[in-house]
């Protein structure tokens, strides 16, 4: 399984902080995103935001980054700390 986590405005828009996906059907971060978009129109619209960032195992990655079982994949808006 792959653990998926959401933060900040994205978590609120989805009303979801965390879920799991089977690693069998998704090979990349983009495929994870596509799978999540397919859940319903609300999720599709939320993931159509081009500014969303992705991290795998606590490192920022691009959409073609490979994912495997046991990974933690995170999606979040641009950061605003400091």
């Amino acid at each position, binding site marked *: 399984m792959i653990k998926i*986590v959401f*933060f*900040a*405005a994205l978590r*609120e828009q989805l009303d979801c902080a965390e879920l799991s996906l089977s690693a069998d059907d998704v090979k990349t971060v983009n495929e994870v995103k596509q799978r999540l978009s397919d859940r319903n129109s609300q999720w599709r619209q939320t993931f159509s935001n081009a*500014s969303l960032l992705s*991290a795998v195992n*606590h*490192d*920022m990655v691009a959409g073609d980054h490979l994912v495997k079982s046991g990974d933690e994949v*995170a999606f*979040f*808006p*641009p*950061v*605003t*700390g*400091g």
Partner: protein
Amino acid sequence: MTSQDLFAEISIQAEDFSLADEVALLEKDNLTDGAVVTFTGRVRNNNNGNSVTSLTLEHYPGMTEKSLAKIINQAKEQWQIGRVKVIHRIGELHIGEQIVFVGVTSKHRQDAFAANEFIMDYLKVKAPFWKKEQITEAGKTSENWLDAKTGDTDKAELWS
């Protein structure tokens, strides 16, 4: 100063911090670094012209520490610096409260300035923190997540 005296500490905390205590730790038994540069960021009252009353800081535990450690290592590769301390607060913070601290010591003031500013610039675009502001206007309170500033991304790219 022996190498084990060099340190880079990162703290993500809800509690406030003391600038004086942090600088005292950076300077303690450190007689080779003549330059100490600090940056302190505080909640101000005029973000985007709204009347901000407080902020709530969320972060991504685990990734936060990892990203800050990476940023500090990049600074150490580029400049000759001694000790580094980064503190970032989380949770609810009110106007005037301290949010973030970066302290850097060096033999050379130019390196201390550059490394400190680099760490802040990268923290702003790479470290997973998000601010939600609470705004009170005409007696009505609303909340909204801050938008990232494109200027911050541009500034971080200037270093590379």
